[in-house]
């Protein structure tokens, strides 16, 4: 029973197109289904203090039954999670061209240094005299990120990009309030990430949509008409989600600043800019970075990340508490006495383990490596564009930076959509690109190769995309039913949402 992963009789006869089903590594059950009473994977040392009677100490608060936690031996746990891991695609296996996500190589030395005992075992409330090494890392990373962005002040506290956006818009609001009026609305281009409008809403702002121009960029005329003294900020991604640099950026900043509004930059696409141009130099007032994108900290299946927020000096008084400051003797401490601060956005100081990794990445690169990285990222995207633009529709002809966005217009004529092409790409050994985003492109294919791909890997990807374009014309069904080589075929998302099963439950013998 434990290894039977079928919920019901297959609706179609099982074919041999997928992974070989009988192989035990493909049939790993849930950890609960592998459990048996009395197995264990732990051993506590002998208790060196008097034992206590929990029922007596805890009274009514004593827990009688612990529910359905599994009981397994160590080797079974190793095999369980190792088998699961093999069902994942990963950067370590091949190209992962998810646009906007910057799936670059995650250096292994980063993992080693983050686990050094002096950092890993540091409690956040240890006296600052015993945390100087960690503070030194934080200070050094702050200094590097300020230099890279051209900004004046920074907080590393936000735990992810969206959390950074939240912090950045809080700074914006606090500054406007200090000027006597928080203002009412935030402008967001229709090409923006969904986190932008969600963030502005949490900060109490109305969202006003800004329509892109025919190049997919900011329409200066529309911007000038929409910005008024009720506008708190424009949230701009630059390069845009189309991978296009806003070459009128200085005019955008001027239009905003003339009305007292701020320019917020979503730094999701910073991998196109590092070492080549600095947001602080082109008029950005406040921005966030994604250490898990540009600065190589691993995505880990969805997190953790880190979303530092850098700003110009006039926003510095509003940074979240605490702020790291240097004492006269060269040591450092956390300053909580900041009356204008927006407050805390997270307990303690941020995802410190990510700071260590990001700094290791910067040190491994140096100024020359950081610039070369950016150049290679842009080179790779343009190479893909050049090699695919005869088969895939380019909705905008503007120059690409670190990512290129096609549309499925030509393939859709054969009934093959961007989502189908993406699934077929899996059969060729690649992770799909970002599907159907940005929203301003009908049927978007958003491809960000990053600098981590060799010519060989790029050529294989290009060959796969060209082959799929041919299949879309000659055998569209093959593409529409992809993937054919994976352990599971396309999964029924409608069923998952209609009758959500969000946890395992035993089929019979409910636990006591």
């Amino acid at each position: 029973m434990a290894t039977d992963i079928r919920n019901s009789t297959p609706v179609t006869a099982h074919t041999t197109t997928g992974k070989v089903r009988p192989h035990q590594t493909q049939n790993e059950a849930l950890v609960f289904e592998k459990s048996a009473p009395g197995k264990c994977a732990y051993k506590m040392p002998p208790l060196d203090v008097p034992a206590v009677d929990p029922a007596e100490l805890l009274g009514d608060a004593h827990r009688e039954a612990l529910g359905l936690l599994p009981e397994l031996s160590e080797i079974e746990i190793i095999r369980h999670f190792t088998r699961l891991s093999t069902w994942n695609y990963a950067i370590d296996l091949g190209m992962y061209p998810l646009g906007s996500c910057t799936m670059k190589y995650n250096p292994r030395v980063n993992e080693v240094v983050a686990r050094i005992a002096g950092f890993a075992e540091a409690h956040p409330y240890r006296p600052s005299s015993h945390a100087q090494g960690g503070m030194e890392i934080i200070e050094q990373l702050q200094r590097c990120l300020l230099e890279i962005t051209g900004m004046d002040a920074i907080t590393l506290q936000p735990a992810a990009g969206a959390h950074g956006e939240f912090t950045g818009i809080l700074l914006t609001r606090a500054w406007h309030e200090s000027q006597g009026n928080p203002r009412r609305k935030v402008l967001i281009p229709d090409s923006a990430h969904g986190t932008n409008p969600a963030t502005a809403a949490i900060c109490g702002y109305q969202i006003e949509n800004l329509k892109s121009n025919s190049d997919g960029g900011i329409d200066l005329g529309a911007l000038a008409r929409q910005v008024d003294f009720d506008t708190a900020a424009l949230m701009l991604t630059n390069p845009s989600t189309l991978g296009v640099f806003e070459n009128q950026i200085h005019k955008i900043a001027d239009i905003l600043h003339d009305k007292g509004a701020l320019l917020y930059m979503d730094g999701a696409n910073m991998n196109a800019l590092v070492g080549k141009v600095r947001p602080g130099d082109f008029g950005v007032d406040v921005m966030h970075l994604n250490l898990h994108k540009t600065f190589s900290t691993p995505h880990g299946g969805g997190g953790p990340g880190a979303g530092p927020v850098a700003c110009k000096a006039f926003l510095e008084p509003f940074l979240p508490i605490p702020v790291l400051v240097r004492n006269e003797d060269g040591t450092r401490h956390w300053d909580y006495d900041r009356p204008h601060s927006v407050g805390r956005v997270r307990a303690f100081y941020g995802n410190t383990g990510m700071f260590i990794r990001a700094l290791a990445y910067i040190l491994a690169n140096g100024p020359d490596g950081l610039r070369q990285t950016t150049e290679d990222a842009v080179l790779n995207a343009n190479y893909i564009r050049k090699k695919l633009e005869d088969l895939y529709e380019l909705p905008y002809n503007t120059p690409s930076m670190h990512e290129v966005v096609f549309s499925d217009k030509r393939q859709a004529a054969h009934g093959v959509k961007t989502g189908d092409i993406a699934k077929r790409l899996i059969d060729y050994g690649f992770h799909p690109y970002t599907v159907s985003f940005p929203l301003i492109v009908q049927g978007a294919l958003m491809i960000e190769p990053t600098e981590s791909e060799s010519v060989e890997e790029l050529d294989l990807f290009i060959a796969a995309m060209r082959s799929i374009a041919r299949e879309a014309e000659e055998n569209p069904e093959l593409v529409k039913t992809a993937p054919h080589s994976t352990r599971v075929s396309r999964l029924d998302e409608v069923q998952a949402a209609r009758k959500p099963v969000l946890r395992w439950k035993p089929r019979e013998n409910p636990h006591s």
Partner: protein
Amino acid sequence: MRYLPKSPDERRRMLAEIGASSIDDLFAVIPPEYRLNRDLLVPRQLAESEILDYFHRAARRNSVGYYSFLGAGAYRHYRPVIIDSLVQRGEFLTSYTPYQAEITQGTLQAIFEFQTMIAELTGMDVANASMYDGSTGTAEAVMMAIRVTGRRKAVVARTVHPEYREVLATYTKYQDLPTTLAPYDRQTGRVDLAALEAEVTEETAAILVQSPNFFGVIEDIPTIAAIAHAKGALLIVAITEPVSLGIVRPPIEADIVAMEAQSFGVALSYGGPFCGVIAAKEQYVRQMPGRLVGQTTDRDGYRGFVLTLATREQHIRREKATSNICTNQALVALMATIFLTVYGKEGMRELAEHNLAKAAYAAKTLSAQRGARLVFNGAPRFNEFVLDTEESPELWTPRLLDVNIAGGVPLKRWYPELGNATLWCATEVVTREHIEAAARVIAVGPAEVWRH
């Protein structure tokens, strides 16, 4: 640069294929006045050996080898070795959010197991795939309660972690959400039930308490739930020390549980990355923030897992989303899942019992020293307790550090009325030897005061 897989010749060839004469052509779109025509002022490129050396030197300026009684929302527990072996597999480490389900079943199944274990431990029906940490999870739980009830007030116990309360204040600042604080009982350290009841009205969306609370005291959850439900409000229980759930009755009467799962095999790492999680009763699932993994079948009828109920999320709902969260703490949630699998049903109980015993012994031993006493009595505790000393902690803290012991956290910063009180934590890794050593140091001060 060793991470870049191209030779100079390959770069030239690629530029030629693109039809660019130099790499600068590809950056021509950037207005010349903004181009950075110099090196960034960051340290020069370091060899791997130099990187290791740099961080090892910095780490030595963080003290190591200390025995710690520090808790207060971040706990030192033993971390089984296989956690790091497994989470460093590249297939977990270097994978993205599992949007492409067919090639991320490993991550998806592991999250489904995490959701199940958290639901089992907390006594809730469902749990999400993780939040940034316990503090942001708690703030998001309060906002969730607002959406569920359509009411706009919250009552927060003063015994909730002070930094969690600060984060909540930041999150709700522009949500038109007044919160009132409920005081604690000076005898027991529990939330003052009469005061709490007086604060709750028909306009209250939720009561927020923490259990074990910031003082380490276990709250009377059934009674607090009754107070909340009598007025149609929800009860949110925050948990910062989830190892307690191995022996402490779960808050089954709560509507939402917001938890920090760092104790489950996650390094302290100076406060992050940790792993928040929100669990709730089933009827509230559509108001939950964050990602959820659900079970389904593929076309051949085989079981598989997908991200589900995404219509709550920002990439679909934009400004109407339940939260702006996107990136979460997935790899840390995987650590917690492996930890819970290693300890399992029996291990979690035994682990919790060891914590209970160590803390009971530490509380008894330390409070028996002259000039020292336990501040709160009469309510059960788990692995933390509040100690008052006649001598200021500013005096005994350096003496303890001299013998490689980090003592309790001074509470005056958040609770000025508690004077010299400090919050101590004794987990399973604290030894009797160090408890007794700490007691000897604490005893020295008042003894000298006595003599003179």
